[in-house]
């Protein structure tokens, strides 16, 4: 009976510990998916990882293959966000087409993208002004 109790306590302790670690990390790993307008309204703090969905503003896409400096403006029709990234844009990234960027806002309000994803296929509809980006894009 003693052995059984020791085991039970150990198993419960392990379960509680794992649950605690999981919930802790869940909160810190959640990346919100917002439109530029929502990001502005929520006043996302600098340094918090978020995902922004919108369109690449026509005429704004610049990439310098030598410095690998990538810049464009992401817009949802209401709010414009200057995006700065490093490295070549995905081949599918086009002006006027949908894009999703992941990264953080810098103190000056520009968005430092760690990841730029083009949303360019027929199943994706760029978000209408003010709308939350579609969650069901493949």
């Amino acid at each position, binding site marked *: 009976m003693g*052995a*059984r109790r*020791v*085991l039970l306590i*150990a*198993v419960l302790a*392990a*379960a509680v510990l*794992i*649950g605690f*670690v*999981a919930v802790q*990390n*869940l909160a*810190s*790993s*959640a*990346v*919100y*998916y*917002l439109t530029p307008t929502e990001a502005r309204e929520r006043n996302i703090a600098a340094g918090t*990882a978020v*995902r922004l969905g919108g369109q690449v503003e026509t005429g704004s896409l610049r*990439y310098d*293959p*030598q410095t*690998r400096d990538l810049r464009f403006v992401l817009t949802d029709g209401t709010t414009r966000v200057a995006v700065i990234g490093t*490295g*070549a*844009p*995905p*081949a*599918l990234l086009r002006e006027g087409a949908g894009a999703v960027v992941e990264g953080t806002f810098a103190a000056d309000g520009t968005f430092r993208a760690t990841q730029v994803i083009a949303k*360019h*296929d*027929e199943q994706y509809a760029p978000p209408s002004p003010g709308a*939350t*980006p579609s*969650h*069901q*894009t*493949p």
Partner: protein
Amino acid sequence: MSFSFADLGTGALRAALPLAIWGIGAAAYAAAKRDGRALASARWSALITFLLVVLAAFAMIGALVTHDFSIAYVARNNALETPLFFTVVSLWAALEGSILLWTAILAGATAYVAWRGTPALPRLATTALAVLFAMLTFFLLLVTTPAADPFVRSEIVPLDGNGPNPLLQNHPLMALHPPLLYLGYVLFSVPFAYAIASLILGEGGDRWLVATRRFALVSWALLGVGIVAGSWWSYAVLGWGGYWAWDPVENAAIMPWLVATAYLHSVMVEEKRRLLRSWNLSLVIATFALTILGTFLTRSGVVNSVHAFTQSAIGPLLLGYLVAIVVLSVGLLLWRLPTLRDTGAVGTPLSREAIFLFQNVVFVAATLTVLLGTLYPLIAEALSGAQLSIGRPYFDRVEVPLALALLFLMGIGPQLPWHGASRATLERQFTAPIVAAAGGALLAVATGLGGAFAVLTYALAAFVVATVVQEFARGIRARRALHGESAGTAFANLLRRSGRRYGGYVVHLGIVLVAVAVATSQSKTIEVERTVRAGDQFDAAGYTVAFGGLRSVSEPQRDLLVADLRVTGNGADEQLRPALLFFPNATQAVGSPGIAAGLHDDVYTILVAYDTTARSWATVRVLVIPLVSWLWLGGGVVGLGAVIAALPQPKRREVMHGLAEAPATVGD
């Protein structure tokens, strides 16, 4: 009237549906009344249903091969220029075809139980047969109604079809990965059906478990190899240099595999120690429910993923099916709980059963935490409307420590006797492995592996390998002493005669290969990105990459923009052709990596961007990924070990035919 594949397929499926419904009643009656004629009727229903569904699947393949665009599925997933190979595998390239394949496998499993299972265990297997017929009926309803009818006619017959999803016509693994996963998923229906039958009959014993142990093992192995094949596909096709993204589709496949792994181990505790009866039933139910949950997640389009290529009416139906299965199974289990008393007693915390218990807890915790991370975005969206995703950091931080804990338990569990270990046993079993673990840690540090987790992985990997080598050495020595066999013969006989035990060790070695591959590739990959002009060359982790220029290639079904790269150094000299693929019916270009695979490392090249006006430059990303090929190798070793463990063992009289086998040999 002329012949049409659509009519043939529709006709076959519509004929199969009433047969399956009849089968439920016939099998249930045969089990309740022990009626031989009803059983014969159920058996023939099962066989004919299976043949009809296979006929429907071949009708679909016939329609695909003849480009019969009067069928909407063919028009959407095939084009005149699609190569024959990808035309045939398009059977499972989209929702309706996948469900048809699923139905065919399930019908095959039903027929197998009807003919091979029922003679051995008349009441139990016949009841299980009724359960299987009920599940088969659900899937036949899907494929004969608009929910997933694969033979819906095109409204307007196009001159040419859309062709398969570009991502799915790019690699031969497409032929292997989905069917393996489906086989794994669906074959687990058999242990589940036996478990439910045992609950319905109130047997309380472990006959269901012994009878389906091999089915569970085979389905687990197919699922595991299917998962590895999927990550290989992702690595070779998607051009991101990774193989696992904690994508909901991947999670959907790994969750049932994790619970099934726990089950395969706790089964031994029930067989040997008469413990964990209700727990084992719960694991089987959970595994099966997770296969349906996975199908629901991937097929209904509720989660954001490249695999969720369809959003259709099937979602609510699968959800309803899942809820029905969970409610009925859990209800049955609770009802029968009083009959499921454990008769054995657990040993000390240093006994094999205690380690198996911990191992089960960790596997279930890993499953639940993956489930939490997968479903949390859906729950958050439903509750607050906020859209968010749970990224890799969550899964990496939670699952990596759990995986290391499992690696540790994998090393000590098989080394401990049932009931409990003495101090002398501990010393005998663990002296060499602990020395090996220290060696593994030193090796990791010496090769410049960064990170505590990576060093720990190496230490634990060496620990496990040492325990396995020790086991084989002792087994061989014992056989040589007893039977005077040569070392080679003794080794072969261990695998052949005690396959369940030694096959299990081979599986453990495969898992070690996977762990080492993941730890090394995750911590030591070197990435270089360069913008180059024709004739330029640059260095990447000791390799020299020379860019020969860009060129266009035209193939019947697609156009390619190829970057010619020559990779030399470290004994390699290979021409790589990373490319962008343009399909006529897709607005999206698809990147295709060029890979020089090696046992030591892979050179993985991606064409990231290029000068669209003059083609004067290209941006190329080069990843040097160490030991990644060990991952696929490890998957193969796991499969091999499972085959060794599943093969019938000679000289042990089989108690029951076909499904059943002699009592366990693990821990003998």
